[in-house]
């Protein structure tokens, strides 16, 4: 039996909360739609366009994010996915990929998809979000901390996961941080992952 470290227990608690939260009604999507997106992310990438534009977007985010262009987002929008809904899809898909990566890293099987929780989406988007230099509306200038800000619930979930797995945005200013690894070691991991994902960040 594996003895879980304190670091692992803290992360596990957040991941369990996040995983169950995926199944509830979101801001623009129902619980069953969010769980379906999680399922699409887990399907092997066949590099073929999916009929449902929301699922096609999720597939690209999960398997081919570095090659998404503004024209792809425009295409999904023209096919009926609002930019605000797309932001929620980005949030759900990117968190599913993170949680699955963590479990795989520790040799654990993927979590079972949660049962959808009935209910209507809240519709509580950020009314002051608008497009600037990115492809989605944001509150303020677009950057990693604000990319999901048009959908506050997704931005909050992303921030919580970021804090549990890595550092809080505020804590990122501590270049000498130590959380199981020293900050320099954490950044080496981050840089290599980003390189292998073809991502400049």
């Amino acid at each position, binding site marked *: 039996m594996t003895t879980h470290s304190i670091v692992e227990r803290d992360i596990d608690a957040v991941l369990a909360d996040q995983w169950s939260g995926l199944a509830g009604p979101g801001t623009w999507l129902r619980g069953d739609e969010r769980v379906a997106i999680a399922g699409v992310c887990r399907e092997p990438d066949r590099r073929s366009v999916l009929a449902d534009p929301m699922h096609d977007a999720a597939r690209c985010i999960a398997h081919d994010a570095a*090659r998404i262009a503004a024209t792809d987002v425009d295409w999904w929008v023209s096919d009926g996915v609002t930019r605000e809904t797309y932001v929620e899809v980005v949030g759900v*898909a990117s968190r599913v990929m993170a949680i699955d*990566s*963590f479990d795989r890293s520790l040799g654990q099987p993927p979590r079972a998809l949660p049962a959808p929780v009935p209910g209507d989406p809240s519709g509580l988007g950020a009314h002051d979000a608008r*497009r600037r230099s990115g492809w989605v509306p944001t509150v303020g200038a677009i950057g990693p901390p604000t990319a999901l800000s048009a959908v506050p619930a997704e931005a909050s979930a992303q921030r919580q996961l970021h804090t549990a*797995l890595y550092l809080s945005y505020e804590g990122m200013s501590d270049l000498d941080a130590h959380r199981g690894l020293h900050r320099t070691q*954490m950044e080496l991991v*981050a840089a290599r992952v980003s390189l292998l994902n073809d991502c400049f960040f």
Partner: protein
Amino acid sequence: MLRASATHTGRAVDLFAIADRRRDPLVDHGHALMRFVDAVMAADPGELDDARTTLEAAAGRDAMVRAAAVAANFQMMNRLVDATGVPIGASMRSIAADLGLDRTGETAVPHDTDEDTT
């Protein structure tokens, strides 16, 4: 951030090792960390088991778990920034160019502007 952290704490780091596995990153347990990340990304169960065991033996369980967590975080953040068109800042572009990684033109990399597209 890797360069910033290393500079801030007076630690040596070879940034070129990020792209060239033959080089020593000059970071504590750097080789074991890089091997672990590569195994996670390749989703090769056998290699991942070995890499995990090696890293945990060398650096401890908390270190291995945090490496898994940081990798997971950047699986999320890479997708988030790529899918929403977060612009690449000039400093990031400069570092990428220094490392021979600036592949602008191969992919749609948005440049950093303050243009309001509303």
